[in-house]
């Protein structure tokens, strides 16, 4: 799960990481009121869940209240990579001497959290890694002991020479590591971490991604979820406990299991079609789940045929077949549906499907080809 910059900054501030004062505005009037309140130059920053907001024109410096009004007008409602800006963060602008990068992610190879720091901050860290890898220091932390003081100092010393700055940076990095564990993050990032003319180290940006598997014990973080900033179909799917990702093709896919769902989509592409979505109905799927899945896919106007591929293990094919029949009765789909059910209770499933004149295809490849052929004919 992603949270916004302003939410991440709240978490940082509570953990003792210095951030400039700021607040959120959903209207131009609110933005202006905040700029007036601070009484000095501010930044107007769009709050959307994508990277590269600055490049897209969604982050602007406003010298005075009037400039803040102009930028807020432009940015609120603006489209950034397909997402509409509904909120802006108005935050006090600070004078910058240097820009650095600090981030913590899971390293799958060492199976440890890795702290990355770079004195080349303010730009995309992947670009730094590709062009000047020597400017990045990576440090895998022993998860049992956490990030100790002397380790944090080493990282801080990679960024600055002045002990006064190193001391502040080390404290910030240690606090950031604590935040990483406390909120069950999969990524925390400060880009840039800046120094000011009066030798202060401040986080002027903040990014936190949360590990979905940790959400069950993160009530406060879960409450931060911004449904406005997400795809409505994906929100509906999550509420029904379905794993769903919206894509742009014309073949709707309903599959059990994430790997098989991906393989099915790949095969659609291989045979010349385009998948409209990734949808995994999960393990023990009841008929109701299948119905919801059909509802979500049918609401996508690009979909011209639906492909249902089930390999029954724990999932029982008859359950899925019952769900399909329910969907036929309730939703009366006008587009063709092709089905391949194999495994547990396959024979019963075939009988159930007969009532809506559906036949289960014999192989994975055949059902995919059939779905593409029917979509092309619509």
């Amino acid at each position, binding site marked *: 799960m992603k949270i916004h910059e302003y939410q991440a900054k709240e978490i940082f501030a509570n953990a003792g990481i210095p951030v400039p004062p700021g607040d959120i505005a959903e209207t131009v009037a609110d933005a202006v009121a905040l700029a007036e309140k601070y009484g000095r130059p501010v930044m107007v920053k769009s709050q959307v869940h994508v990277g590269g907001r600055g490049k897209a024109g969604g982050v602007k410096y406003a010298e005075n209240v009037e400039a803040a009004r102009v930028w807020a007008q432009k940015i609120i409602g603006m489209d950034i990579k397909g997402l509409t800006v509904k909120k802006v963060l108005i935050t006090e602008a600070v004078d910058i001497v240097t820009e650095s990068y600090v981030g913590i992610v*899971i390293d*799958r*190879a060492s*199976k*440890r*959290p890795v702290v990355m720091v770079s004195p080349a901050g303010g730009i995309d860290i*992947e670009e730094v890694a590709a062009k000047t890898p020597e400017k990045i220091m990576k440090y895998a932390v*022993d*998860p*049992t002991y956490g990030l100790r003081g002397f380790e944090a100092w080493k990282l801080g010393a990679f960024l600055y020479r002045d002990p006064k700055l190193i001391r502040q940076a080390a404290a910030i990095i240690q606090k950031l590591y604590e935040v*990483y*564990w406390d909120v*069950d*993050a*999969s990524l925390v990032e400060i880009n840039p971490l800046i120094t000011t003319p009066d030798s202060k180290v401040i986080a002027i940006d903040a990014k936190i991604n949360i*590990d*979905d*598997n*940790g959400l*069950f*014990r993160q009530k406060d973080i879960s409450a931060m979820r911004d449904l406005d900033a997400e795809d409505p179909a994906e929100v509906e799917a999550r509420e029904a406990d379905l*794993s769903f*990702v919206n*894509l742009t093709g014309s073949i709707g896919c309903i*599959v*059990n*299991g*994430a*790997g*098989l*769902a*991906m*393989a099915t*989509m*790949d*095969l*659609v*592409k*291989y045979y010349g079609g385009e*998948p409209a979505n*990734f949808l*995994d109905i999960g393990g023990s799927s009841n008929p109701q789940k299948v119905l919801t899945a059909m509802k979500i896919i049918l609401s996508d106007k690009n979909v011209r045929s639906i492909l249902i591929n089930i*390999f*029954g*293990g*724990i*999932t029982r094919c008859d359950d899925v077949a019952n769900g399909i029949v329910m969907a036929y009765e309730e939703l009366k789909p006008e587009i063709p549906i092709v089905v391949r059910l*194999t*495994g*547990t209770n396959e024979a019963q499933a075939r009988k159930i499907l007969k009532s809506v004149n559906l036949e289960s295809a014999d*192989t*994975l*490849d055949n059902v995919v080809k059939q779905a593409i052929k029917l979509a092309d004919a619509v």
Partner: protein
Amino acid sequence: MSILINKSSKVVVQGITGRDGSFHAEQMKKYGTNVVGGVTPGKGGSKVAGIPVFNSVEEAVKKTKANTSVIYVPPAFAVDAIYEAADAGIKLIVCITEGLPANDMMKVYDYIKDKDCRLIGPNCPGLISVDQSKVGIMPGTIVKKGPVGVVSRSGTLTYEAIWALTSAGIGQTTCIGIGGDQIIGTNFIDVLTMFENDPATKAVVMIGEIGGSDEEEAAKFVKNKMTKPVVGFIAGRTAPPGKRMGHAGAIISGGSGTAEEKVAALEKAGIPVAASPTMLPDLIKEKMAEARKKSKGSKKTKAAGKTTKSAKVKKTVKAKKTAKAKKAPKKTTKTKKTRAKK
């Protein structure tokens, strides 16, 4: 033969009184697995499908000499269940449960890495050593005894691949799902090493997916260390970057972990990659026929060198070279040249 589990594996089911635990305990027993006990704190003394239930893994191990555990407890308690099994002296822990926080798993990994114990999963379907033992949730009906080892990061996709093999008359030694999470106890290389050392396994099917770089590491290992043929499949060629495709581990981030990179790495290592799981049987047949031809040319060397592992590997490599040299000397020099360039 097989890897990891066999007829003598004594299995204890953690979370046996739950819905999934009780159902699968019975399924495993039906398959022939030696299920010696179950664990649910507070329910010791009762029975599930004739299997005695204990209050702790420690107690179960003491009374039944269990050496293998399978975990079906809910995600909030599964991390604790792994620690408990490791502390009780279980040698093989298979965690089926999905949804364990990654940060907890990093601590678990750190804890068990120095212990004499192996973790498979979490978020995995478990494993089957055909006609011997089944630990986990894989349907026992789709497997058939034979010479192919199967290792996969997925669940139902693994079933699809196994079923394709079985339908084509190709049986398996052991089929294992290593799990779809970012932090897992056993990776491809661990399993490939075991298949390489298992005399009954003649070839391996490896099923990967987007995210991380385990497949790339495995490809290097296959090229440098394995004598047995390997064929592959990679799911997620159509996955968009930045989106979690169901599994916590199946995510393309920062432009790395894509299917294209993985397919390229596998092919570069001489592992043919199937476009559909249904194409795996043909690939494996081809590769096994190739390997048979090679070994025919090296029967003498093989018979002579069965004493140590390293000797065996060396000899087979030698044999490969001679076989190649006899058949197409030009080709061998070509491959050598390209290798030198790299």
